[in-house]
């Protein structure tokens, strides 16, 4: 009985191969985009976890200054003498050729066993070699590849290190970082002897910190990955519309078979079970294809994502993917869950269908006005919820929930809006063919509405995200002009060289402005503090979002600091609030500046104050003011005089170009996902039109019999696709605007801490409209071509049961 029932159910797919292919393809594509995002996120998170786990930082308590600055290693010696089992670590960044690497210096002799992921005593490294100059650099294979041809100590490869990180001896690291006798923190071994003197007595300036639950990197990049996840989910939702549509059609087409199966004695429960099994098999197959496809998409997107993460956060993510069981598991689970969710209402309808219910294969397309009104009411409710969430809720999750509610609400409202528009078209038409065209299009709506809803989501996402990106770009370009007014930017290689370069430049340029900075922990977050000189460059070019009237004078006098927008927003800072720079040293907030593209908090203060408060601040970089036409020659002379590499003396344009490149790569992934989502929506329309085309014949044949040619009917079919795309775009436009506003005013602020002005780009919207029309017309083209190739014999079959 089971076999026979299953054979009957499956025979549908044998007779409807294209429908079957569309179902598999829709589900596979939906899963693919979702899995691609998961694979990328998984790779990135694994890399952050590796970075956080190096030398046991994620498991061991640490001793450090409250502000995170380095301290003399005498503190370490004092603690060891007092009986504490601690081990020193120094951390900092250093450029090797074109590569900027994170140096982690450890003392292999005192490193707690929990922290020793890399055995430096191993034969290929050797303890002696590790601790004596030139030392050994332990790096990942990817970093080793990047350092080929660059002068470094001997390299050893370890899987335990993430890309972009170097593990070396603390003495070697102190030399490389120009920090002799300094340490960043002390690792505290888990087991301590009981007799040690209290910490507060030995090193009162150090605080004991529990291992962080989440690394700084994973906290910083959280928003980026959440954005990607949201996009992946949107793509999945769009794909699910295809699945819902295909399953719905298949269930309705099989109603007669289902009725017959029940009539010949197959129990309803068994029938439902068989259908669930069928769905499970289908979704598992499609899920497997989807995850495999997803890895393909991810491998194409990962280089851009890795570049974005490096450019934005300094986060190193390997450029290659590893196969993760979690991605496969999650991909399959979401494919199965999505399919079952799509089929739930159909299964319920089958379960509650009376045995003798009439088999009406087209019943599904005759959605009642009541159902449409209910759907619209649901849509309005979701829109209201979106509005409430955005104004009453807070946080990124609330922002995305609001976005989701808005998109889904708009999608649910689409059919009733289209129906009203088409009705209006019918009323306004005076010619009979036009009247029939609008009426017939309205009749197709129930069958196409899911695909059109998917198109609405894709178009709104494209329009909204496109507007956000372009607004961001326009603001970013203007902001770069403000932030990078100097003609040259110089990076020296040592403090000594820095002083000499400064002196050399002072007599040859209009101004040499230090770009000195130190890292500190402020409000528990890593923050960079920069020192600025008292110079017209800043007064003339920097636009403050808010500031006290004499802001630059106060900065110059060391009576205040500036904070970037993201820090001010995150900490809800107001002008005049005290910014605790060091224990017992606070300065009032004198102004807030915009700092687009930088996820970290940043503070600016007078350069003298910086040097006084942070003697270890990096003092290697300068901005040089000079007449623009003299800049190239000065750059060349400077390189020659100090033997500076090309990359250490760059002009304004190069820095801007680099910043823009980072920007473009960041949004390359978004653009790719946008196009893919639109592609899935296009496929949804194609799938719907294709499955509907079989039923269209009975609707078109009377019009043909009464004197419309097949060619004209086919042309009208293509026009119908285009018209529906135009109307859907009209509906998507306000949704896109709303989406753009929410991305700029809510999501960006929550995720990155900056709020951008919204600009409109009519030509981009026009291009999107043309793209939508073209894709819908293209989707309608194949069924239309098939129609023109129909023989009269096929068409007259509609009218006769015999020949």
């Amino acid at each position: 009985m089971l076999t026979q029932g299953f054979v009957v159910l499956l025979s549908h797919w044998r007779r409807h191969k294209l429908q079957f292919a569309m179902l598999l393809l829709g589900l596979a594509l939906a899963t693919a985009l979702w899995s691609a995002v998961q694979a990328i996120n998984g790779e990135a998170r694994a890399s952050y976890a590796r970075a956080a786990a190096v030398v046991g930082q994620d498991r061991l308590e640490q001793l450090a200054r409250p502000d995170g600055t380095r301290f003399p290693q005498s503190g370490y010696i004092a603690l060891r003498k007092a009986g504490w089992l601690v081990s020193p670590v120094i951390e900092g960044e250093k450029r090797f050729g074109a590569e900027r690497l994170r140096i982690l210096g450890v003392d292999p002799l005192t490193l707690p066993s929990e922290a020793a992921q890399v055995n430096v005593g191993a034969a290929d490294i050797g303890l002696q070699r590790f601790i004596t100059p030139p030392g050994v650099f332990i790096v990942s294979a990817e970093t080793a590849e990047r350092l080929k041809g660059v002068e470094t100590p001997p390299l050893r490869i370890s899987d335990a290190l993430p890309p972009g990180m170097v593990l070396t001896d603390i003495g070697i690291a102190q030399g490389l970082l120009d920090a002799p006798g300094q340490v960043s923190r002390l690792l505290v071994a888990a087991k301590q002897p009981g007799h040690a003197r209290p910490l507060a007595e030995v090193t009162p300036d150090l605080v004991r910190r529990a291992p962080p639950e989440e690394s700084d990197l994973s906290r910083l990049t959280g928003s980026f990955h959440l954005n990607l996840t949201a996009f992946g989910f949107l793509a999945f939702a769009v794909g699910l519309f295809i699945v819902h549509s295909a399953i719905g059609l298949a269930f309705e087409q099989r109603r007669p078979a289902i009725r017959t199966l029940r009539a010949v004695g197959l129990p309803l429960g068994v029938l439902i079970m068989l259908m669930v099994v069928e769905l499970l098999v289908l979704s598992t197959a499609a899920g497997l294809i989807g995850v495999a496809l997803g890895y393909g998409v991810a491998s194409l997107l990962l280089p851009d994502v890795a570049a974005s993460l490096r450019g934005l956060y300094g986060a190193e993510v390997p450029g290659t993917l590893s196969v993760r069981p979690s991605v496969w598991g999650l991909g399959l689970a979401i494919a199965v869950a999505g399919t079952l969710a799509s089929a739930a209402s159909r299964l319920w309808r089958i379960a509650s269908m009376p045995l003798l219910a009439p088999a009406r294969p087209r019943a599904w397309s005759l959605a009642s006005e009541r159902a449409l009104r209910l759907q619209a009411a649901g849509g309005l409710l979701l829109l209201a919820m979106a509005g409430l969430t955005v104004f009453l809720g807070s946080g990124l999750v609330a922002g995305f929930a609001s976005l989701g509610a808005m998109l889904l609400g708009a999608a649910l409202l689409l059919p009733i809006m289209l129906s009203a528009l088409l009705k209006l078209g019918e009323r306004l038409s005076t010619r009979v063919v036009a009247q029939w065209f609008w009426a017939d299009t309205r009749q197709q709506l129930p069958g196409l509405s899911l695909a059109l809803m998917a198109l609405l989501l894709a178009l709104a996402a494209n329009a909204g995200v496109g507007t956000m990106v372009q607004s961001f770009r326009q603001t970013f370009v203007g902001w770069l002009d403000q932030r990078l007014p100097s003609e040259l930017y110089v990076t020296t290689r040592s403090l000594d060289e820095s002083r000499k370069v400064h002196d050399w430049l002072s007599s040859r340029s209009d101004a040499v402005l230090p770009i000195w900075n130190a890292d500190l922990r402020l409000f528990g977050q890593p923050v960079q503090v920069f020192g600025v000189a008292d110079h017209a460059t800043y007064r003339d070019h920097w636009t403050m979002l808010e500031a006290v009237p004499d802001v630059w004078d106060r900065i110059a006098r060391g009576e205040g600091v500036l904070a970037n927008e993201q820090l001010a927003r995150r900490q809800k800072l107001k002008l005049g609030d005290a910014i605790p720079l060091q224990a017992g040293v606070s300065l009032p907030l004198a102004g807030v500046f915009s700092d687009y593209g930088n996820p970290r908090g940043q503070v600016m203060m007078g350069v003298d104050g910086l040097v006084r408060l942070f003697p270890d601040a990096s003092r290697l970089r300068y901005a040089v003011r000079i007449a623009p036409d003299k800049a190239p020659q000065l750059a060349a002379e400077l390189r020659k005089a100090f033997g500076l590499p090309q990359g250490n003396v760059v002009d304004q344009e190069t820095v801007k170009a680099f910043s823009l490149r980072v920007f473009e790569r960041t949004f390359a992934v978004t653009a790719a996902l946008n196009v893919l989502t639109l592609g899935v929506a296009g496929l949804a329309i194609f799938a719907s039109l294709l499955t509907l085309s079989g039923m269209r014949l009975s609707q078109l044949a009377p019009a043909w019999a009464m004197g419309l040619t097949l060619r004209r009917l086919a042309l009208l079919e293509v026009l119908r696709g285009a018209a529906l795309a135009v109307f859907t775009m009209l509906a998507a436009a306000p949704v896109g605007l709303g989406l753009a506003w929410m991305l700029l005013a809510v999501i960006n602020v929550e995720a990155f801490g900056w709020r951008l002005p919204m600009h409109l780009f009519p030509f981009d919207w026009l291009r999107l409209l043309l793209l939508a029309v073209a894709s819908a017309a293209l989707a309608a083209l194949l069924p239309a071509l098939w129609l023109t190739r129909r023989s009269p014999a096929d068409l007259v079959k509609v009218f006769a049961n015999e020949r």
Partner: protein
Amino acid sequence: MLLDLQDVSKSYPTGEGVLQVLRGVSLALGAGESLALTGESGSGKSTLLHLAGGLDRPDSGAIRFEGKDIAGLGDRDLAAFRRVSVGLVFQQFNLIPSLDVRANLAFQARLGDRYDAAWTGRLTERLGLAGLLDRYPEQLSGGQQQRVAIGRALAGRPRLILADEPTGNLDEATGDAVLDLMLALMAETGAALLMVTHSTRLASRLGRRLHLAAGKLS
């Protein structure tokens, strides 16, 4: 002669080879005449009707309408012929589901630029459809749908009405009423009628009757 079929043959490819449906059929129909075509299922009645209405083309033979051979016309001209000269009534009614009764009634006449509001109004009254004009086909009974189909076929005052089992889906009383109405209206317009039917009772009510068996007239 309004309609003149000479030695018309038609075959269809099937899974089991070529099916010869019509074998050298000839018939003629004058203006205002009515002719019933009877025969068993599969005898080729509907095919003959479709060929006469320009819905399909014969393999061989000639089909002349008012002296002009329509078998050789291209798609565009055949469509124009159907728009202007032929009214079709089918067993399954085949109304346009997306249009209401009013629009269905006027559809073919407007397509062929032969719409006459006064005549359509009269037809509507005669067919008893005045109260149903805003309804859609799915909201009508079978008899009502067939009356709309007859109205649609006659609205453009075509010279030839082709009806394929027009009462086949209706009960006997409703079928008789529908046929009465159709014949009366045709008498008013002067159109000729070629009707396919299984029923000898209905066939006897038309002017002439021909029987088709195995693709040949007898």
